[in-house]
């Protein structure tokens, strides 16, 4: 589903590469943790998958498409197949939960009939059916992240990228979000989650890819956050 082949990314004006010679393959339906301290290259890894930036050298292939050679006008189509959630939720403040989720479908031109059917079902799935008409500011952090997750998966993406999704949440709330991510993964979505929340990683026991200073230093099935 996602293949990195000897990928190096150096941002303009910087000497040290953000990613250096990284190779990894993530299969369809996998759940993978991307761990490492701040500045280790986790975010760059995710940005490369979204084609927000291009590899300086090496090859990034997502869902069979070589992103280095992808033309600009094809990028929207790529992103329609990838859901993304962030540490800071990024919900639109003036819109209700329902509107926030519907927005993701409206802006890619999905008909209103589809939207009216899909959005309530997705809100039901993330457990926010009764809060559809609330504004983000009226929700707790965990609920906001659920709303963000609903927006990320409402278009049934094949890949879900999560950048520190539990970073702003307390441990018990994080558990709920992780259960949801696990559920989404079991429904067939490939999940790639960047985190430095060791508790979460240790509990889940999934594949762990560890980055340090831009290099891949560990790729372990059913791993934990740190070395044992």
């Amino acid at each position, binding site marked *: 589903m996602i293949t990195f082949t000897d990928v190096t990314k150096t941002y303009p004006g910087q000497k040290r590469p953000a990613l250096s010679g990284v190779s990894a393959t993530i299969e369809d339906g996998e759940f993978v943790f991307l761990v490492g301290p701040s500045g280790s290259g986790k975010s760059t890894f995710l940005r490369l998958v*979204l084609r927000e930036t291009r590899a300086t050298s090496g090859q990034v292939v997502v869902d069979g498409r070589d992103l280095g050679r992808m033309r600009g006008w094809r990028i929207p189509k790529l992103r*329609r197949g990838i859901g*993304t959630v962030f540490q800071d939720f990024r919900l639109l*403040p003036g819109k209700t939960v329902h509107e926030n989720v519907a927005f*993701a479908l409206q802006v*890619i*031109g999905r008909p209103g009939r589809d939207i009216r059917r899909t959005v309530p079902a997705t809100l039901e799935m993330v457990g926010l059916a009764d809060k559809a008409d609330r504004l983000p500011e009226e929700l707790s952090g965990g609920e906001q992240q659920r709303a963000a997750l609903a*927006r990320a998966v409402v278009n049934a993406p094949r890949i879900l990228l999560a950048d520190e999704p539990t970073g702003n949440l307390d441990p018990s709330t994080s558990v709920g979000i992780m259960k949801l991510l696990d559920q989404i993964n079991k429904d067939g979505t490939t999940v790639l989650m960047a985190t430095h929340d060791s508790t979460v990683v240790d509990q889940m026991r999934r594949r762990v890819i560890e980055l340090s200073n831009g290099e891949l230093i560990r790729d372990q099935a059913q791993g934990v956050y740190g070395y044992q």
Partner: protein
Amino acid sequence: MRHALTELFSGLRRNASMNLAVLVTMWVSLTLFGLGVLVTQQVDLIKGRWYDRIEINVFLCTPATQGENCTPGQGTTDAERTAIRAALNGNPEVADVYYQSQEEVFAEFKQTYADSPVLASMKAEDMQDLFRIKLTNPEEYQKVVAETSMMPGVQNVQDLRQFLDPLFEWLNWGRWLAIGASGLLLLAAALQIGNTIRMAVFTRRREIGIMRLVGASNTYIMLPFLLESLIVALGGAALACATLAAIQQFAIVEKAKPALQGFTWVGWDHVGIAVVWLVAVAIALSMIPTLVATRRFLKV
């Protein structure tokens, strides 16, 4: 499409004062630009189809004309006409000679005075036929004028450039002043549009960020901004068109035409041409800065 329209109206409202500033600048600059186009057409009309080809008109006598070389009560005879033509053709200073018969002159006259009561009382026989002359060297007109005006059957010799050039000089100044001032104002309008859109994109950067993330196309994201600029520019263009139409109606149709008959004035068809130009400029000037302003924000 509904999204684009909703966004368009909220954008127009949100940036109301900026959009108003653009509208007014567009209005004034496009009016000046339209006036420049009209003056250009006015100059071309006065020049007619002869000005760029000839320098001297040699008018011949009719029974009604008076002149030193005319026989009263009798027009230029065919023999005199042939002699004049031969003399002109033989003159080394003369490059080309065109003859216009009374019928041809009358045809032009009818066009010029199409809506004048004078036309009804005129016939082809009242027209003076004439030779139109192109010189090898337009500076050397005096000798040819002197020689030709002595010939029998010649009523009057008119040096066209001496007569028209000062007028053209003024009109040209007016035209360049209008176009130059409109150019500066249009530049200001284009920069204003760029700034307005940049601010609009900035205030909506969250939405745009999400749109890009979930895979909205660039066209979808940019359409409301393009429409916003376009509507403001077209609003300015509409006001400029109305102003030009008012100038045409009140200054030219009602004042200048009755005051200066026999002079070809720009008509509504010429205003139409100016309007087409003005709308084209308005569209280009709204689209280009918008594309430039949004491009930087939408770069992936």
